[in-house]
């Protein structure tokens, strides 16, 4: 009961700070929206403008093959005006294209990407363009090669019909992990340093609370703030961004519960380590940024070099993200997140024990 009073008091102090309203309730929605909306996956049909410098049989055939590659093709005929609202990518078929192929001379097609073209779409465009070119050239030697007559077909599917981490499915879990750590390692830590410096912790020791109760109360105070924040993310995820959190409420509760405790312990450690509140929150934000970037909160971990992806697992952020992907993308259950949960528990325990050791001196 006394423990709960301490926890409640910490939560009240944090929520009384007006800026915490911004960081806990407003910033997550803004960040998730902005980062989620700009990283949404490419539409099925990629817009491509084809500028023909000269009309030719092979040029026209290439355009047909591009259409078959699922491009939304807009053709600018020779001498025709280039539309102002052109698609974000444009390929130019140069004059003398057919002649060069007939004479077996190298030809280069320029694929220009505008400033609104996303790298994913450009890569898809490059590959599809390559396929269309190969089909065109093979057709020159072996006769027309329509895709329907290919001997080898490719059947592709996702391993499970679930949510791939793109758009809000990347930005929401990523920002959840980052913002929870920001609140515990900057606000939580800063508040603890202030209490330590002003002797409030020592004064608490004169109350009937045991030393252990004070420390547990402080840890739970940070966990309570983090839990409120996780709750906000879950609710805006469901209500605003329509996120499917997977099939395992138990797995989600275990993973997020342990992440909250780990974040609280890290906040406690940071608050017991630094000498001033400014240093705690300043270094806290720097550390959180590093952990978030390496842990795959800012971008999908798959796109970074292997060594960096592996380095991310030195931090709890990567394990939390891995667990969330297991639940959301693979549709896994409690059993599938046991390893991430175990590692998070170890991080939490380690940080908690170190913080306790440091804080005992301050009480």
């Amino acid at each position, binding site marked *: 009961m006394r423990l709960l009073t301490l926890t409640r008091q910490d939560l009240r102090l944090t929520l009384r700070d007006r800026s915490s309203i911004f960081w806990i309730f407003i910033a997550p929605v803004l960040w998730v929206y902005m980062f989620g909306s700009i990283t949404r*996956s490419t539409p099925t049909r990629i817009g491509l403008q084809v500028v023909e410098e000269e009309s030719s049989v092979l040029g026209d055939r290439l355009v047909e093959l591009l259409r078959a590659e699922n491009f939304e093709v807009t053709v600018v005929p020779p001498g025709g005006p280039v539309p102002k609202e052109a698609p974000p990518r444009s390929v130019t078929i140069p004059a003398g294209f057919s002649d060069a192929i007939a004479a*077996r001379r190298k030809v280069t097609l320029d694929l220009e990407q505008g400033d609104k073209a996303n790298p994913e779409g450009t890569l898809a465009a490059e590959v599809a363009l390559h396929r269309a070119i190969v089909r065109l050239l*093979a057709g*020159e030697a072996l006769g027309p090669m329509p895709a329907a007559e290919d001997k080898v077909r490719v059947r592709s*599917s*996702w391993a499970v019909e679930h949510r791939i981490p793109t758009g809000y499915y990347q930005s929401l879990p990523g920002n959840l992990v980052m913002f929870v750590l920001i609140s515990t390692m900057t606000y939580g830590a800063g508040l603890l340093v202030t209490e330590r410096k002003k002797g409030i912790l020592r004064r608490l020791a004169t109350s009937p609370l045991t030393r252990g109760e004070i420390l547990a109360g402080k840890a739970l105070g940070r966990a309570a703030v983090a839990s409120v924040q996780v709750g906000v993310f879950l609710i805006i995820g469901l209500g605003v961004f329509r996120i499917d959190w997977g099939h395992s409420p138990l797995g989600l509760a275990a993973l997020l519960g342990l992440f909250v405790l780990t974040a609280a312990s890290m906040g406690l450690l940071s608050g017991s380590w630094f000498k001033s509140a400014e240093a705690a929150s300043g270094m806290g934000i720097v550390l959180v*940024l590093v952990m978030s970037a*390496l842990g795959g909160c800012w971008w999908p971990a798959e796109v970074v070099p292997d060594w960096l992806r592996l380095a991310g697992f030195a931090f709890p952020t990567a394990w939390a993200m891995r667990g969330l992907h297991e639940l959301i993308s693979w549709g896994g259950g409690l059993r599938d997140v046991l390893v991430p949960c175990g590692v998070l528990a170890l991080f939490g325990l380690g940080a908690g024990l170190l913080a306790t050791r440091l804080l005992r001196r301050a009480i």
Partner: protein
Amino acid sequence: MRTLATLVLKDVRRRFADPAALLLNLAIPLVMAGMMALAFGGRGDSQKTPVLHLVVVNQDEGPIGRALGNAQQNPEAANRLDIKQAKERGEGLTLLREEGAAALVLIPKDFSADLLDGKDVELEVVKNPAASIMPVIAQQGVEVAALYISIGARLLDGRGPRIAELFEGRGWDDTVAVAALVTELYQRVQGIDALLIPPLVEVKTGEQEAAKDADKGRPNFMIWMFPGVMIMGLLFTANTQMRDLLREGEIGTLRRQLAAPLGAVQVLVAKIVSVSAVVALATVLLLLIGRWAFGVTWGPILPLAAASAVIVLAATGFAALVFSLVRTERQGDAFGGVLVMLMSLLGGSFFPPQVIPSWMQGISRMTLTYWSHGALRDLASGGGWDKVQGEVAVLAIIGLVLTLTGLVALRRRHLRGTL
């Protein structure tokens, strides 16, 4: 003027006696840019391709299955492809999930034999749902491979069963027939060789001019990334430095200065100028780090100096106004921090402004971050006076209005004794 210079000099010296806060403010943009550089290439220009991790279940005992399953042995693919073999689908799916590979590729039983027999065959790609980009690349890669194999099958033109026999060690006795077959195939390959190996038509992907590194003509994402986070860092720096004003207000040193032959305006102007001196130093440091660590070239010196000067003015004015409106340092930190983050997010500090949702672009233009990193991004993209003069003019107006409003509000508070 001399008094003002003395006041500023002493104040700046005092501020640099404890540079920890300044260094922390500069660390935030540098850490953000550093992380981006680590993830996507040392200086933003190396176009690193991440390794494609695949799991292959090869149930085909023929030559095509073996070639596909061992594609990693191709020297060109060796650095870009990492293939793990699995015996059957279940094991492959487990590996896909545990190893976080991009996709599982299944080559079915009798794939080579059926293909050589002229039958239609199928490759299966099972993508990892916990990744978004690499599985699609894996699928596209397999589709390209499938196309090449289809072309190969067409090249055989019904000679497949005979070749299959030869692969099985049968039919070698009729050397004349074997020689005829080899000659025929050689001629067919020759016909396609000049067209397809490598493809006669190549694609060159070009960026729009604004996204190219002015010096090297190579795309460099740091051109938009670094100015964005740099402006955020400068605004945090200005806020942290201006906070000192309230601290002096609390301990009464500002009021005590009024006992000297100094006016309130003189004292406050000196404070604001000393903040701007620190912000200017931070600007120079970040510009140099941007150049040497992240390969951002800042263009001609005069437009850069003008843009930097108005950015410093705007950042200082912003901080002066914020701290003229709040009562305590804590309020200033909170209010200022929230405003800086909001302006950075809406102003496009973290991504190119063009990709911001269109309804938000109007709001974006109302932030000083938009104009500040816009000017630096234009210079870094090779622009000169003609490109940045509009942004410099807007920033000069914003800076003057913010600084004067902040100064008037601070003076009123100072004379009222609340500062």
